C-alpha cells in the first residue's frame, strides 16, 4: 500500500503519457490532456507545501529568537505586503497583473529591481571566476581565454572600434564553432534524461519514494 500503489501510479501515468504521444487518437489523446490537467493541479498543491515550509522556518526563527530573528519579521512584512496588495488587486480587478493595478505597481517598482540587482551582483563574481578560469596555463585554458575574449569584445561597441570585423568573428564563433559541441552536449543530456525517465517509470529508480 505504501510502496506498491505509488509504483503502480508511476507506471500507469508514465505509460499513458508516452503512449498518447505516439497514439494521439481516442482514448489516449484525451487521456494525455486530462493527465496534464491533473499534473498542473497537483503542482499547485506542491507549491503550497513549499510556501508552508518557508513560513514555518521563519516562524520558528522568531519563536526561538535565533540569531538574526528580526530578519524573519522583515520577511513576513514583505510577504504580507505582497499578499495584501495582491488580494486588494484581485478584489478590485479580475486581473491583478494588468498595468495600473497596485499589485503590478509593487511588482514593477520593488520586485523587478530587486531581482535584476541580485542577478547583476553576479557580474562581479563571474568576473572574479573568469580571472581564475582564463589564466592561460595550458592549451585548453588558452582556447577558453581566446574564445571568451573574442565573444566579449566582439559584442560591445569597443570591439567594433578596435577592428570592424571583430563582431562578425564573435558571431561566427557563437554560431558555428560553439554549435557542434553544444549540440553534442545537448544530445548527451537528452539521452541521460530519457534513460532516467524510463528508470523512474519502470520502477527501477525509487529514491523519490524513500
Amino acid at each position, binding site marked *: 500500500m505504501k510502496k506498491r*500503489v*505509488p*509504483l503502480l*501510479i*508511476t507506471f500507469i*501515468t508514465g505509460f499513458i503519457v*508516452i503512449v498518447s*504521444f505516439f497514439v494521439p487518437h481516442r482514448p489516449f489523446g484525451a487521456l494525455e490532456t*486530462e493527465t496534464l490537467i*491533473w*499534473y*498542473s*493541479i*497537483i503542482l*499547485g*498543491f*506542491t*507549491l503550497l*507545501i*513549499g510556501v508552508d515550509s*518557508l513560513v514555518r522556518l521563519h516562524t520558528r526563527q522568531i519563536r526561538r529568537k535565533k540569531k538574526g530573528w528580526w*530578519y524573519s519579521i*522583515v*520577511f513576513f512584512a*514583505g*510577504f504580507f*505586503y*505582497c499578499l495584501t496588495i*495582491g488580494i486588494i488587486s*484581485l478584489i478590485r480587478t479580475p486581473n491583478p*497583473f494588468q498595468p495600473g493595478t497596485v499589485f503590478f505597481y509593487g511588482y514593477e*517598482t*520593488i*520586485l523587478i529591481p*530587486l*531581482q535584476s*540587482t541580485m*542577478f547583476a*551582483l553576479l557580474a562581479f563574481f*563571474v568576473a572574479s571566476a*573568469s580571472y581564475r578560469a582564463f589564466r592561460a596555463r595550458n592549451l*585548453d585554458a588558452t*582556447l*577558453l581565454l581566446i*574564445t*571568451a575574449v573574442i565573444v*566579449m569584445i566582439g559584442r560591445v561597441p569597443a570591439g567594433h572600434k578596435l577592428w570592424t570585423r571583430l563582431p562578425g568573428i564573435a558571431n561566427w564563433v557563437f554560431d558555428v*564553432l560553439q554549435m*557542434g*559541441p*553544444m*549540440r*553534442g552536449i*545537448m*544530445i548527451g543530456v537528452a539521452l541521460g*534524461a530519457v534513460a*532516467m*525517465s524510463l528508470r*523512474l517509470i519502470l520502477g527501477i529508480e525509487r529514491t*523519490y519514494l524513500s
Partner: protein
Amino acid sequence: MSISTSIWIWIAALLTLMIYSFLYKDNPFYRLAEHIFMGLSLGYTLVILWYDYIIPRIYQPLFFSPHQWSLIFPILLGMMTFGIFSKKYNWLIKYPLAFYVSAFAAIQIPVMLRSWILKQVEASFLTPDKFSSVFNSINAILIFVGLVTTLIYFYFSKKREHGFGAAATVGIVFIMVAFGAAFGYTVMARISLLIGRMQFLIQDWLGIM
C-alpha cells in the same frame, strides 16, 4: 542634476544599494534587502497560485457550468500532499509525488527525443543545400566535426587510442571553444544587467544624465 522625488524610485534605489553593499562583505543592509526580496517573492507566488491555479483550474471548473466533477480526483490526490504534516499519514504524500514525478518524466521523453536529439541530429546532417558556397560548406563541416568529436570525447566505453584518441583530442578543443564562448556570453549578459542597474541609479534616481 535633478534627484527623483518619487518614493518608489527611492525605495528601489536604496534596495539596489543595499544589495550591492554585499560586495564589501555580508552585512545587515544586504540581509535586510534579501529578506524583503524573499518575502515579496513568496507573496507573489501565492497570488500567482491563486490566480493561475486555484481560480481557473479548480474553482471555475467545479462551481460553474459545465461542472467537471472528475477534477475531484486530482484535487483529492493533491490534498494528499498535506499528509506530510502528520507523522502517522505522511506516507500519503507518496501518491501525488508518484503521479507528479511520473507525469513529468513521461512528458520529458518525447520532448527530449524530438527537440534535443532528433532535431539536433537533423540540423547537423551534411545535406546538399549546406554546400551552397565555400563559406557555408566550411561552416557545415565544422559543425558536423564539432558534434561528432564531442560525442566521441564523452564516450568512455572504448579505450582512447589511434584514431579514436585523436578524435577525442579534437573534441576537447571544440568543447573548450564552446565553453569559452558560453562563458563570455554569460559574463556579457551579467554585465549588461549591471549597466541597467547603474543607469537606473544615475539617470532615474540621481538624474545626472
